[in-house]
């Protein structure tokens, strides 16, 4: 078992005191961020991108992964106690978890969620260990045309699977691609969209774009619509589960990951769809139908939360083996890889085994830490919900400024940051999703390079883009994605016509 020995080596990396510290910092920070309203894991990782200037890559990614898992964990706390989901992944947890808290079973809801996250993360990460090296092996020969196809898939998927409007998704993607164009052309040194400015010739740093869109944009948007009276969280004690509850939930914990993991790996919006699917499954299988939607059914918390954690593991499979980001967090982590000059993809497992396996092993460590820390700390986390909102959003502005200034020590970067933040504000106002723009900035320049390389090899012939089976299958998936709404319409029509 090659993967197992590598994993053992990974534990060697992850269990060094320094990396253990980063894992602990990551999960604590992640949980706090998940609990705090207004900050999502993507914004948190974006705000922390400047640490990549001072930290070694292994430590940084161990921390980022801890934030990702921790935020999933913390998000459900907000859902259950406040009925306002902190992250999109935690929407479902509010549906059964909040009624449970209202009827005095908040402690059980929190415990079901916490153990669900542990189970989901454990199973999901095990699947990651089993599958990722295989995927990487299969993909190890892929060349420029294949990379280009994967990136086109990422572009199409974020614009057409997520959000309600494809036009607005595409508009957002194009804004991102435009920002990515600014600077010197990587292959020829030609200036593009620099308007003769030396500052712009270096391009706009991905950190500034990510922080601007996620952090400044969000802070300004909330500032314009700040709720006068923040909602009051339901007070709760230490989470615990009785024997009856465990008997009801253990199957849900085990079912969730197998719904969550595959959805995390494909570009279909991360945890939103699988948590909902898990919810529906649990509801159908439940023996306590009378509790659903009234008192709150504990299975409806356990299953979806376990699915959410497993989807995070699935996301890491695509990001590490193919360089394909399927969620906003993965996109920002990809930006961090770029900061280090590391290209995630099939070769990552060969070139950076210490980093990859250290990261994967730290996920297991992080999960144990999360469970051990968070069951006793839940009442403390709940206090975070009372933080005065002016401090919270002033803090976001402050750290955004630190991040942008740390990029190059230039005041101009702060001005660019604010402009991008205002773009992010406008996008939130008019329903343009943020993720496509971020993916456009991060993958756009790379996609262009792969495209040009592929065409150089084929001497300008477009067939050079589709001459591998891998690329052809990716394009087939893209066509399917694009045709999906049409197919659905057709399906609806044919179903309707016989009855009419």
């Amino acid at each position, binding site marked *: 078992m090659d993967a197992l020995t590598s994993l053992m080596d990974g534990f060697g990396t992850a269990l060094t005191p320094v990396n253990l510290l980063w894992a602990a910092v990551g999960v604590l920070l992640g949980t706090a961020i998940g609990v705090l309203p207004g900050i999502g894991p993507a914004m948190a990782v974006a705000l922390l991108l400047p640490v990549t200037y001072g930290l070694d890559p292994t430590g940084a990614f161990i921390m980022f992964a801890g934030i990702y898992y921790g935020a999933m964990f913390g998000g459900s706390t907000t859902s259950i106690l406040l009925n306002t989901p902190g992250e999109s992944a935690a929407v479902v947890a509010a549906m059964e978890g909040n009624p449970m808290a209202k009827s005095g079973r908040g402690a059980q809801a929190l415990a079901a969620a916490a153990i669900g996250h542990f189970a989901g993360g454990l199973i999901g990460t095990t699947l990651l260990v089993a599958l990722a090296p295989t995927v990487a092996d299969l993909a190890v020969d892929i060349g420029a045309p294949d990379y280009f196809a994967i990136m086109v898939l990422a572009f199409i998927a974020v614009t057409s699977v997520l959000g309600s409007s494809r036009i607005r998704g595409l508009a957002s993607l194009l804004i991102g691609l435009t920002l990515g164009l600014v600077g010197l052309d990587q292959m020829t040194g030609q200036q593009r969209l620099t308007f003769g400015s030396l500052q712009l010739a270096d391009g706009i740093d991905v950190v500034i774009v990510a922080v601007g869109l996620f952090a400044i944009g969000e802070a300004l948007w909330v500032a314009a619509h700040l709720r006068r009276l923040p909602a009051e969280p339901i007070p709760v004690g230490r989470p615990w589960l009785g024997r009856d509850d465990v008997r009801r939930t253990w199957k849900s914990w085990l079912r969730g990951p197998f719904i969550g993991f595959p959805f995390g790996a494909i570009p279909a919006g991360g945890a939103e769809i699988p948590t909902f699917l898990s919810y529906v499954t649990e509801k159908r299988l439940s023996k306590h139908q009378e509790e659903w939607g009234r008192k709150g059914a504990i299975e409806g918390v356990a299953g979806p939360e376990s699915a959410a954690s497993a989807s995070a593991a699935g996301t890491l499979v695509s990001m590490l083996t193919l360089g394909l980001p399927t969620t906003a967090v993965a996109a920002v982590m990809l930006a961090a890889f770029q900061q280090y000059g590391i290209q995630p993809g099939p070769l990552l497992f060969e070139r950076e085994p210490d980093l990859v396996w250290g990261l994967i092993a730290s996920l297991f460590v992080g999960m144990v830490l999360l469970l051990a820390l968070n069951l006793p700390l839940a009442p403390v986390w709940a206090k975070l919900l009372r933080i005065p909102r002016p401090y919270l959003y002033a803090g976001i502005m*402050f750290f955004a400024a630190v991040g942008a*200034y*740390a990029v190059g020590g230039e005041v101009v970067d*702060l001005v660019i940051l604010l402009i991008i933040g205002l773009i992010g504000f406008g996008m939130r106002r008019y*329903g343009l999703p943020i993720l496509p723009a971020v993916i456009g900035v991060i993958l756009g320049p790379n996609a262009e390079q792969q495209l040009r390389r592929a065409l150089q090899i084929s001497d*300008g012939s477009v067939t050079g883009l589709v001459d591998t089976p891998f690329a052809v299958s990716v394009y087939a998936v893209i066509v399917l994605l694009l045709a999906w709404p049409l197919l659905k319409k057709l399906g609806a029509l044919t179903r309707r016509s016989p009855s009419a």
Partner: protein
Amino acid sequence: MTTRTTDIPDTPSDERRSWLREHSELGVCVLLLALGVLVLTDALTMDVDLTQRGPVGPKTVPVVVGVGLLVIAALLAVDVLRGGRGQAETGEDVDLSEPADWRTVVLLTGVFLGAAALIEPLGFPVAGALLFWGAAFALGSRRTDRDPLIAAVLSLVTYVVFNNLLGVPLPGGPLMGVL
């Protein structure tokens, strides 16, 4: 989301204004259009004779993006005129039932720009503290005893962590020179 206002405007100018407010999303189309024109102009005025390497030069992708922006601007305009609306983002602290509070947004922007201007003459610890305090003030916090204290501590700690622990240099300014 096609909510129509029920009150009937009585003068043509009122009517036009409320039509414009209803269709303010057309402004996004105008911006996308302008961006598209900008990208296309930049791409087409590029002088690439010397730098062209390979069949696809530095012009091709900007041209595709520029044309894409123009097409999307048009499609979005059609969608808006047909009654389509982008859904404003919701959130835990977001209350969309009240009109946007522009004063806070302008204040925050001003505070941010002010801090950016001060970071070099006064150094990061001072400018950062002013940024936090100012932003908290703009967002409605009026605790003159607590706010500046939190701001100063946060700014100093961040400075030390980045400058001394992480090795990311931040300007200390005259204050750090004294300490």
